[in-house]
């Protein structure tokens, strides 16, 4: 493993401090519970908290700021923060309007965020949660814990953030976040594994002509291992899955996010976006806005994910609202 780091134990704290030093106008970093939060908290509005394991930078600290999150709680690399950490984040940013937790649907995250919510409720704080499960690589079955939350989470944070900033009630912010979750789907593909610093070796091995189709943002296996494909062929398959899941027709308007997984050159993301657009335009599906970049990464994995959000008028108005964070401007 070659990485530009010091001791692996301290990586999240050093990163957090390095981030706060780079963006002193946007965020504060509290080392003890690894909480990133806005410089000034507005206690009148619904507070929005997300977080999860580290290694997905810029998520979620990069989305703390006006129009998006109030706080992001960081676990170790790929490991949910503890309930105690999340509890302290809730305590620090929640006012009378209450707090919404935006949780990516992993068993560890769900258990920790849920326990934290229970603890905060014991302190008479109003806490609701939503669970993002946009990854269509995973079968949605009664017998599993459901689908994983991946890059679509950023769009949920954007839209719920706009609702909270507008002054919506906690219940309404939750409802809008939930509506967004229902309209957002993602699928990823890996060209290489990621390497968790503490482990020091790649999580999985891929042959020099293989890709992992449907990979998760922690390097979890996906739908299947495949031979390498062209950008266009990948775009066809990935869009097919998403269009099918969302039931898109030529009436629909969507937001497209082409998300790099950390080790992918921007060059490839734009080439892929070109293919995505050619296919969408052949189907007369209208693209309202496009995001291309590293929004939700898997450390140093080469590969990308494609996210589609189907807009309704209600969601569009919120999508258009301003946002000013480290990694997302509007």
């Amino acid at each position, binding site marked *: 493993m070659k990485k530009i780091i010091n001791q692996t134990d301290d990586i999240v704290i050093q990163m957090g401090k390095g981030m706060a030093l780079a963006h002193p106008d946007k965020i504060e970093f509290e080392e003890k519970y690894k909480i990133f939060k806005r410089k000034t908290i507005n206690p009148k509005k619904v507070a929005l908290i997300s977080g999860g*394991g580290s290694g997905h930078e810029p998520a979620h600290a990069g989305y703390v700021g006006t129009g998006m999150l109030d706080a992001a709680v960081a*676990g*170790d*690399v*790929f*490991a*949910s*923060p*503890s*309930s*105690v*950490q999340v509890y302290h984040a809730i305590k620090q940013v929640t006012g009378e309007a209450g707090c919404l937790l935006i949780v990516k649907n*992993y*068993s*560890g995250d769900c*258990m*920790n965020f849920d*326990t934290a919510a229970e603890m905060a409720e014991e302190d008479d704080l109003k806490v609701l949660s939503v669970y993002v499960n946009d*990854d269509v*690589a*995973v*079968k949605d079955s009664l*017998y*599993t*814990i459901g*689908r*994983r939350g991946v890059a679509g989470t950023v769009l949920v944070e954007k839209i719920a953030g706009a609702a909270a900033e507008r002054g919506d009630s906690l219940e309404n912010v939750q409802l809008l976040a939930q509506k967004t979750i229902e309209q957002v789907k993602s699928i990823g593909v890996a060209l290489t594994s990621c390497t*968790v610093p*503490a*482990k020091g070796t790649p*999580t*999985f091995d891929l042959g020099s002509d293989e890709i992992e189709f449907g990979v*998760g943002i*922690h*390097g*979890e*296996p*996906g739908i299947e291992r495949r031979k390498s494909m062209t950008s266009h062929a990948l775009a066809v398959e990935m869009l097919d899955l998403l269009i099918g899941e969302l039931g898109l027709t030529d009436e629909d308007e969507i937001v497209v996010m082409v998300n790099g997984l950390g080790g992918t050159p921007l060059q490839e993301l734009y080439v892929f976006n070109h293919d995505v657009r050619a296919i969408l335009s052949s189907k007369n599906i209208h693209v309202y806005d496009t995001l291309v970049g590293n929004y939700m990464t898997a450390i140093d994995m080469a590969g990308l994910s494609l996210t589609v959000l189907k807009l309704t008028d209600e969601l569009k108005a919120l999508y258009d609202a301003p946002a000013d964070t480290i990694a997302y401007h509007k």
Partner: protein
Amino acid sequence: MSTLSKAELFQMLNHMAEVIIENEVPFCELDAVAGDGDFGMSIAKGFKVLMAQWETLNRESIGEFLADCSMVISENCGGASGPIWGAGFKGASKATTGLQSLTKAEFASMLESAAELIQKRGKANRGDKTLLDALLPCVDALNAHKSDENSFKMFLQTGAMAATEGAEATKKMIASRGRASYVGERSLEFPDAGAMALSIIFTAISGQVLD
């Protein structure tokens, strides 16, 4: 020896922490096959903090000690392991409040209570390919043998064998809880990381208990 003293149990827990810390990398590797490869790291992290705070834990009774352990583990183990192992220790502590030593029966019900809280917290059942598939057979074996005339060591080794068989059997299961559940049938043929860890831990600590 037919009871385990408080000191012996603390010694056993200390050894358990050592085993977990030593196995950080192998435990990660077990999780890498169908999960996200961080299990060893997540769990070792909490037990390292436990070791560091060892001398400060409340030693009034076994239950109190385990309750303190549960707090440290919940707060410091990452991922799913924090809530799961935290719940386990909390369950264990509930069954041992005030106790200064454990009979075989008390030991068995301590683990049974641990398994109960893990089930409550994680909502997993037998066969879901989690550490419960090692823990529940272990509890069953201990309950079945809690009145045997054997040594405490043999009693624990019976539990360890059951845990190992249970862990082995997870190879044939399709995960439906935890990260491995996302890969469906691709988790077949590989054991669950948490179950394997439990079998390794139990085998190690039962081996060290004096006859």
